[in-house]
């Protein structure tokens, strides 16, 4: 066992041996090792977000035909560090009549709800926090805490815009959890385990995105909605309700929402990579776990790019469109997909991987075609009402000249 084949165990042994030499009992050594591991991991994730904010701003700039940050350092790479230093010295303005405890707790919960998910995401064969046997359930449960932070913020700010943002969070973010959870059942069903690392191991033969592309699509759409970013950014729609739930936050308390938002995108990309794209699997990844980090990040990068691309390209949905998309399209689709996948997967005998893949692909194709046929059939039902003023004479040069 050398550093290159199992780095985490080598480091753990090194520090553990040193601590045991100081006269610690075995229980305390485990505690200190877990604490150090968790602390370093969480800090690394937080610091990566600082870089990712720059990546996102740069990409958004390019999508919108701008340069993006380009002043500080090469390609403006130090811009977010400067922003971070600035926001540290900004005043906290606490408006009159806020509900103190939830108001201060909300930004902490928003970050904690996203950061905690990282405890179960495997980055390599042995580089992982904890391979919980209820990993997927943990992701769902902890993810809901982030929404709680948003709802608490909207309610406790005592501001009408913030309250509206909170209401929207209740109706939207919470609704989108249903298809998200149903689409998460499908990898669990294929692998027979809720542990994230077991799900990665089970994808050795074939990635789950090939077996259930529609479920992966539903996962991506609902995750973006949960994240509350464009085109689903109704809870903080700046042109409708100023900034929504975070309108009364300032200084680093607002910064925490910013961090939580970007970290959520990052987390979604890694979750997608783990659940659907085979996570750390790749050539020699099993032997050299360090390579696994590279593979996971490489796959996650495509998803991260896609999410930013969507943000840069699509306009915001109306609230009724978003509600209808969830309850009338995604939820029934996810439930029907789950049923058909379960039956078809069982009807094909064990071991026939090609037949199974083709059958499941056919199911997904039929569902996609069927859904789009139904949507087209009922699309004309609600007539679009054009709200526009009466046509009025315009002061164009040719009109003026014709009257004279």
């Amino acid at each position: 066992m050398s550093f290159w084949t199992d780095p985490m165990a080598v480091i753990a042994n090194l520090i553990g041996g040193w601590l045991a030499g100081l006269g610690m009992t075995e229980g305390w050594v485990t505690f200190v090792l877990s604490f150090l591991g968790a602390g370093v991991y969480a800090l690394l994730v937080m610091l990566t977000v600082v870089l990712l904010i720059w990546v996102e701003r740069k990409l958004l700039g390019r999508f919108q035909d701008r340069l993006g940050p380009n002043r500080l350092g090469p390609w403006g790479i130090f811009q977010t560090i400067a922003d971070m230093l600035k926001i540290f010295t900004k005043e906290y303005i606490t408006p009159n009549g806020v509900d103190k405890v939830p108001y201060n707790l909300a930004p902490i919960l928003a970050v904690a709800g996203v950061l905690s998910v990282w405890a179960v995401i495997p980055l390599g064969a042995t580089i992982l926090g904890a391979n919980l046997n209820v990993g997927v359930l943990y992701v769902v449960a902890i993810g809901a805490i982030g929404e709680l932070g948003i709802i608490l913020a909207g309610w406790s700010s005592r501001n009408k815009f913030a309250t509206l943002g909170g209401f929207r969070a209740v109706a939207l973010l919470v609704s989108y959890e249903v298809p998200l959870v149903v689409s998460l059942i499908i990898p669990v069903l294929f692998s027979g385990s809720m542990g994230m690392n077991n799900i990665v191991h089970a994808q050795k033969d074939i990635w789950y995105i090939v077996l259930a592309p529609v479920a992966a699509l539903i996962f991506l759409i609902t995750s973006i909605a949960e994240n509350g970013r464009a085109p689903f950014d109704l809870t903080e729609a700046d042109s409708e309700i100023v900034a929504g739930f975070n309108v009364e936050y300032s200084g680093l308390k607002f910064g925490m929402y910013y961090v939580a938002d970007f970290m959520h995108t990052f987390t979604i990309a890694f979750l997608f990579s783990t659940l659907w794209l085979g996570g750390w699997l790749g050539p020699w990844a099993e032997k050299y776990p360090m390579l696994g980090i590279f593979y996971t990040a490489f796959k996650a990068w495509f998803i991260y790019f896609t999410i930013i691309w969507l943000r840069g390209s699509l306009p915001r949905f109306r609230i009724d469109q978003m509600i209808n998309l969830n309850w009338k399209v995604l939820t029934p689709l996810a439930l029907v997909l789950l049923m058909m996948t379960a039956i078809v997967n069982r009807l094909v005998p064990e071991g026939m991987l090609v037949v199974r893949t083709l059958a499941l692909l056919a199911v997904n194709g039929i569902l996609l075609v069927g859904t789009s046929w139904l949507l087209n059939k009922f699309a004309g039902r609600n007539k679009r009402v054009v709200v526009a003023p009466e046509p009025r004479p315009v002061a164009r040069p040719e009109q003026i000249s014709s009257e004279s």
Partner: protein
Amino acid sequence: MLNDWLYIGLFVFISMALPAIAIFAAGLLSPKKPNPIKSTSYECGIETVGPSWVQFKAQYYIYALVFLVFDVETIFLFPWAVAYNQLTLFGIIEAVLFILILLSGLLYAWKKGALEWM
């Protein structure tokens, strides 16, 4: 297994502590100059009229209620999915019936107009 839960507990604690420490540290670094106008609610420069915690359409809460029904029922599907590989076809048909009941509940809510945005 117990070590895993220890790690999760510590990780959740640290992920609460990191933002809390950052917010506290920024509180020490930042100036504090409140004044009455600065600390009024921000509503685009117009003074607040009436209470902010307004009563709102019950519609929002109906979505929350429908969500509650669905989320609790989908949680029951997770143990089934874990045991899927050991189940016979009969066990899968039973779960399908369960999902069909779930879908008919969705259809009922749909027909009753609980999903219409008003």
